[in-house]
Each structure stands twice: as C-alpha cells, then as structure tokens.
C-alpha cells in the first residue's frame, strides 16, 4: 500500500500531539505502544499497529530519558515502524530496525533544542527580574510551538514524502540485512542501560546491579516487579542501617566539638 496525503496529514497531526506529550511527559501517549496503535488506525490496519506497538515498546524499554538524556525518539520510531511494515510488507520486528534512523534523527533535533533553547534563558531572567508574569508565561509557548511543529513536519516528510526511496531501499535488502535489523531491535535496550549506568553506577552500587541481574536471570517471571521489590527490600534495609550510622556519626561529631570547645 501507499500512504495517501490525508493519511500523511493525519500522521503529522498525530506526531504533533504525541510529540508535545513526549516533550512534556504528561500522558505517556508518546510511548510506542500508543503511537503504533494510532498509526495503525490511521493506516486502516489496527491489528498491525497493536502488534508493532507491543514489539516496539519492548525494544525501547531501556531507552528512557532519565537523567535528562535524550534517547532515539519513540514517536518517530512508533510511526515509522508501522508505516514501513504496512507499506513494504516487512514484519514489524524488522521494521523496528529500519525505523531507527528516523528516530535517531528526531533525537538529534531534540538534542539540538536542548542546547539551543538556553538562548531563551536571558529573556526569562529579564522577565523574572522585572516581575513581568505575563511575558514570562507567553515566552514559554515559543519552545512548545517550535517542538510541536518540528514533530509534525518531520513526521510528514518521513512518512509521506520519503515513501518511494524507502520502498526501493527495503526491497533491495538481502535477507541477512533484515535479520540483522531484527537482531538490532533486540539488542537496542543495551544502549539505554549503558547510558544509565554511566550516570548511576558507583562501585558501591555494583553489587545491587548484580543482584538484580542474577535474580531476573534465575526466576523466569514476566516482569521486573519481583526484582524491584527485592531491590526495595535491600534499599529499605540500607536506609534504616544508614540512618543508624549517621546518628552515630552525629553523636561522635558532637562529642568531638564538645572537646574542642573545652580546649578553648
């Protein structure tokens, strides 16, 4: 099938709404499971959308923006996975891999905004210093509009305008390449986890990382809740222990200070 202009525009609209949500992290309709489903609806193949949504959601599990990082964009990946699967008859698993370049381009656009929006800060500071609430509020809309429009335009170009070359590309791909893209989808979460570890991993927390890994590998359960609960148990035990230790430290410090003052 091919994407009609109307479908292209609807996709752009979808990208604007979910893209804004992605920026604000409010309703989480920017997650692949929602974006894919809605894209499927627009393209008239809900079932494909739902299935692709399930698969893409799993592939993006590790790729969170926690810590202010910016992962490949889920909105674009969600849209393009369904678009590619629908227009090229590839399996959703392979389409995830093929949609990733789009997701990464959007990621880079957003990263650019993350850096360049600091230009607005001096204005914000000025309005704050003047106590000018009205202008301050209005200025906040500028980034929001820029982001929303970017999503719409980029999604329209990707999904509608780039159809033909995309089709040609996919058709010419040998089997090992599509299988390679599928594999990449399964390995992808590793990137997100590595980025998280860079922020969070200190030597004294490594044992807990290992604990979670071992437990999840040993019990075959469908989600990480058991691991999270065990993590919570250890966290709570450490919480109470650390509080005891800091009480002791406090007391020692008090005595120490007392001594010093005696000396004066």
């Amino acid at each position: 099938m091919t994407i009609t202009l109307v479908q292209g525009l609807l996709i752009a609209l979808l990208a604007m709404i979910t893209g804004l949500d992605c920026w604000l992290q409010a309703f989480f309709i920017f997650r692949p499971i929602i974006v894919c489903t809605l894209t499927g609806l627009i393209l008239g193949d809900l079932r494909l959308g739902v299935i692709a949504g399930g698969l893409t959601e799993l592939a993006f599990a590790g790729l969170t923006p926690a810590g202010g990082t910016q992962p490949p964009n889920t909105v674009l990946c969600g849209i393009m996975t369904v678009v590619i699967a629908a227009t090229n008859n590839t399996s959703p698993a392979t389409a995830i891999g093929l949609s990733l370049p789009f997701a990464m381009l959007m990621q880079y656009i957003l990263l650019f905004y993350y850096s360049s929006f600091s230009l607005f800060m001096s204005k914000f500071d000025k309005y704050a210093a003047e106590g000018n609430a009205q202008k301050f509020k209005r200025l906040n809309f500028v980034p929001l509009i820029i982001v929303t429009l970017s999503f719409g335009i980029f999604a329209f170009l990707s999904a509608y305008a780039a159809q033909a070359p995309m089709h040609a590309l996919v058709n010419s791909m040998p089997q090992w390449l599509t299988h390679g893209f599928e594999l990449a989808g399964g390995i992808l979460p590793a990137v997100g986890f590595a980025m998280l570890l860079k922020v969070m991993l200190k030597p004294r927390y490594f044992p807990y990382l290992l604990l979670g890994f071992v437990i999840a590998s040993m019990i075959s359960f469908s989600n990480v809740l058991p691991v999270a609960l065990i993590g919570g148990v250890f966290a709570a035990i450490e919480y109470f222990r650390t509080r005891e230790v800091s009480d002791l430290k406090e007391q020692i410090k008090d005595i120490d200070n007392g001594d010093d003052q005696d000396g004066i």
Partner: protein
Amino acid sequence: MASEASEVGKNKPSKRKSIFTNHEISMLGIRSNLVQASFSYERMHAPGWTWAQLPYWEKIYKDDPKGLKRVMTDNMEFINSSPPLYPILMGLLLTMEEDHVEPTTIKGLKNALFGPMAGIGDAIFWFTIMPIVGGISASIAKNGNALGPVLFFAVYLFLFWSRIPLAHLGYNLGTKAIDVIQENSKVISHAASILGLTVIGGLIASYVKMSLTLKIGAGNSVISLQKQLLDKIFPNILPFAFVFLLYWLLKKKVNPIWLIVVTFVLAILMSFIGWM
C-alpha cells in the same frame, strides 16, 4: 529562621488560613505538567517550574511586586527532578511561600531535596512502573489484542490524575514533611540508588536479547555454544557483557551515538556470518 518555618508549619493544620481554594490546589497538580516546557541543558526545569507556579505567586505577592520579582528570580535557578513527583514538591513549597519562609531556607531545601527525589522518582517511574506496565501491555498487544494499548493508556491516565491528590498531599503536609525529608536526603538518595540499580540489573536480563546460534566442535562432538556452554555458565551472560562493553566505551568518552552504530554493526555482522 528554619525553626520559625517549622513553627509556622505546626500551626498550619487549621486549613482556613490558606489563601488558595481547593480547586486551585488541584490545578497546581495539573499545571505541574508544564515543568519541561522550556527544557534546556542550562537550566532544565527552571522556566517551566516557574511558569507552573506563577499564578500562585501572583496571588501571594499581589501587593508586593518586589516579592514577586524575588521569587521569580530565585526559581529561575537550575533545577531537575522527577516530573511525577513535582506535584508533591510544588505543594510543599507553595505552603512555605505562603507562610513567607525565609528564601534562603527554601533555596537550600531545593538543593538538598530535588536531586535525591530525582533518583527515587526515576527508579519508581522510569525503571519500574514503565517496564512493568509496558511489558504487560506489550505481551497482550503482541497477539494483536487491543486491550494492550488500552491498559497502558488507562494506567497512565490514572497516574496523570493522581497528580491532583499528590498536590493536595504536598500542600497539606506542609513544612513539617520537608524537615524530615531534608534531614534524610543523603540517606534517601543512597536507598534510591540501590533500588534503581537493582532494577536496572533486572532489566538488562529481561530486555536485552542476544543469543548465539553458532555450534562448535566437529563430527560427534558438536555442541551448541549458546545452549550447552554459555547458558550453562550463566543465562544472559552475553547481554550483560555487551552492556558493559558499551558502558566501557562511554567511559572512554565515546559519543553515545556510536553505541547505536556499534549495536547495528554488530547485529548485522552477526546476521551476515550466521552466528546469531
């Protein structure tokens, strides 16, 4: 001054003193969604955070333009925390602002509080709730069952609305709660790291999929490298190793974009030579 603040806090439970209506506090919860509006690496949530609370400060300082300027300027300093926890934090700070707690106290508190809260929030919302809700919905959706996305949306809609009671909670807890949290902020962030890293360890095992199809040996002695060797050493040993390879690259200051490139090159190579 800090003691003054907490004394005021103690007098607070008598609600009638509040200059805000119930509905206004509810709206504060909704408005907490604005924090990321003008996100930039320079100040992160500062402009959005200020925007969200601006109407409330206007009311508090309606006869005190200098006060409004002060509070707006103060809040334009860098802040970053976990968005779903902002309703509580905004509620707490609004009480303090309303009680005219010393600005330096408020600033110190923000510094002490927001970092640890980011750790807790991320561990709970990004690393636990999202993979669980996402994972369960996805497992339903994978069979083409539309209840998958519906379930996902329902949970997050619930979390969205829960911002309202959370804002009330923060506002009602008042300054007392802050004392407790602030005192324990180091301990809390320690605990949050433990929770977070345990979960990430679990996620690595659950979500990164790598499995060799390669066989080694010849003639009668053929064994499957994955099933008869690697899986017998430890399951998920490849995902774990690969995450640490990427981690090591990051430590070597490799640009994150390269990690994705490495992943793709590896996957395609493995597919090409038929090892995976």
